[in-house]
């Protein structure tokens, strides 16, 4: 039984594919120019985690991350995409090292941007020390690359969100695009509840989780620069827009750090006493803030652009 071959353009295929539902490799294949992905240390190399066996856990041939090179509208880019369904997309020794090496190359070359498709719960506990160190090395490598002029764009919209050390790495990127399903935080909802009680944070209150950590809030807060719809095509367009907007050179340095400091200090001054995201959105001038979660993407994007909070020169 064979299905008829459809005449679907790559853009149509990418527009019809949920970023959230797609695997890491599919996200890259559809986001990049068709056929342009060259994978480094792909699954046929079988560089699996050396640590999972002692925990009687299955391995994945690529250790849960795809790294490589491709083209975005003809522009060469380095790419990394985490597989959020394997061990929660968490950073292990090999997984992290693949991204570290990619950033080292980017630093050396200087002119090729890096796209990171985050989908991670943070450190892989079975390899906790290796995972934590990998994240520290990635942060260092990323700042060195940015200091050499490299633009690093983070895309967040997968099942595992961008948690733990992943959230810190995201905070080191030149710019971020996030979708509604995306979440960015350091501690996960369950961890906060376990440590501080359900009154502090009810991890089963999905609306609360999304108001506090989700894509729409991060966009309105200025913690992310672009809100994308949950399609691979929309993330592709977001990546292109951010690459264009970041200007000819990333110029990471003291001025940018001071600007970021002012941006964050200002956020604390204005919203530090707010109890909930709704209070923050109201304080930002959003009328009917409680309806924000239900706003369809196009209306939300218009609203977010009106509020005007972007951080590109202060990140």
């Amino acid at each position, binding site marked *: 039984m064979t299905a008829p071959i459809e005449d679907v353009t790559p853009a149509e295929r990418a527009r019809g594919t949920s970023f959230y539902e797609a695997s890491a490799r599919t996200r890259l294949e559809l986001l990049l120019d068709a056929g342009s992905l060259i994978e480094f240390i792909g699954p046929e190399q079988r*560089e699996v985690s050396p640590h999972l066996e002692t925990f009687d856990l299955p391995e994945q041939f690529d250790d849960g991350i795809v790294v490589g090179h491709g083209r975005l509208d003809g522009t060469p880019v380095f790419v990394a995409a985490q597989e959020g369904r394997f061990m929660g997309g968490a950073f292990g020794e090999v997984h992290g090292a693949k991204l570290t*090496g990619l950033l080292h190359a980017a630093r050396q*070359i200087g002119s*090729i941007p890096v796209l990171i498709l985050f989908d991670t719960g943070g450190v892989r506990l079975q390899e906790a020390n290796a995972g934590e*160190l990998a994240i520290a090395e990635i942060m260092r490598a990323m700042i060195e690359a940015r200091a050499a002029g490299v633009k690093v764009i983070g895309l967040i919209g997968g099942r595992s969100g961008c948690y733990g050390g992943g959230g810190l790495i995201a905070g080191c990127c030149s710019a971020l695009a996030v979708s509604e399903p995306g979440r960015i935080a350091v501690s996960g909802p369950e961890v906060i509840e376990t440590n501080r009680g359900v009154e502090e944070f009810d991890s089963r209150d999905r609306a609360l989780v999304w108001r506090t950590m989700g894509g729409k809030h*991060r966009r309105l*807060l200025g913690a992310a620069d672009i809100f994308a719809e949950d399609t691979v095509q929309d993330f592709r367009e977001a990546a292109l827009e951010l690459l264009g907007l970041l200007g000819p050179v990333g110029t990471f340095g003291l001025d940018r750090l001071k600007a970021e400091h002012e941006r964050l200090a200002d956020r604390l001054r204005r919203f530090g006493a707010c109890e909930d995201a709704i209070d923050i959105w109201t304080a930002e001038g959003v009328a009917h803030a409680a309806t924000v979660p239900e706003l369809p993407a196009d209306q939300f994007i218009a609203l977010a652009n009106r509020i005007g909070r972007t951080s590109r020169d202060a990140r």
Partner: protein
Amino acid sequence: MTLDDILVSLFPDGHEVRNDDGIIAGAATLRSGGKMLVIGVANRTALGVDEAIRLSGLVLESIGRDSGPILVLVDSDSQRMSKRDELLGLNEFLAHLAKVLIHADMHGRPTIGLLYGHSAAGALLATGLATRVLVGLPGAEPAVMDLPSMAKVTKLSMAALVEKAKSTPVFAPGLSNLEQMGAVHMTWSDSRPLAEQLEALLADMPVVQDRRGALGKERGGRLKAADIAERVRDLALQTR
């Protein structure tokens, strides 16, 4: 050693370092006569948005105004686990602190971390793990995650985890594990003056490049990381 003991042992020629509600800040005089900025977290204080912005502000103020190395003293909890901190974007505040420290280190202000108490997870990433050289003092108890929490998440018993930890340094808390992994460069002795150990380190600081992957490989704690990173780097350099 208490924080006061540590400061006196590090800076017998005097210091103005204060512990203000868990935030350590001040200048200290080195044996050589130069000055050192000292910042840090004390009393196992959690690192939240308020603490992080204060610490990064201290470093930013010092850049351009002062010269010399920066010491980051660490006895913290993990990142602050609260609705408010996440609501306000804790990831950005912690990343900002790490970036400020890394920038300083890359621009003439070498950074040394000194773990003397506890630290964990996001707090460790933003402080000790964002320095060029991370030193441990005996008795320090850094962790990525505590064993009871790990047992809960991995659904293994504490006994099973403790047993596994005997044969690998890859997951369990502890200074010697982190040293073997390459995170902690060295441990100082608490039975010799810290000032002379600091002086010896300052006289022989490693280069600014991140050597933790190589250290982890040398010490047997991370046998794959450095090689995998190098292979990806080489493949990427060839592909352009």
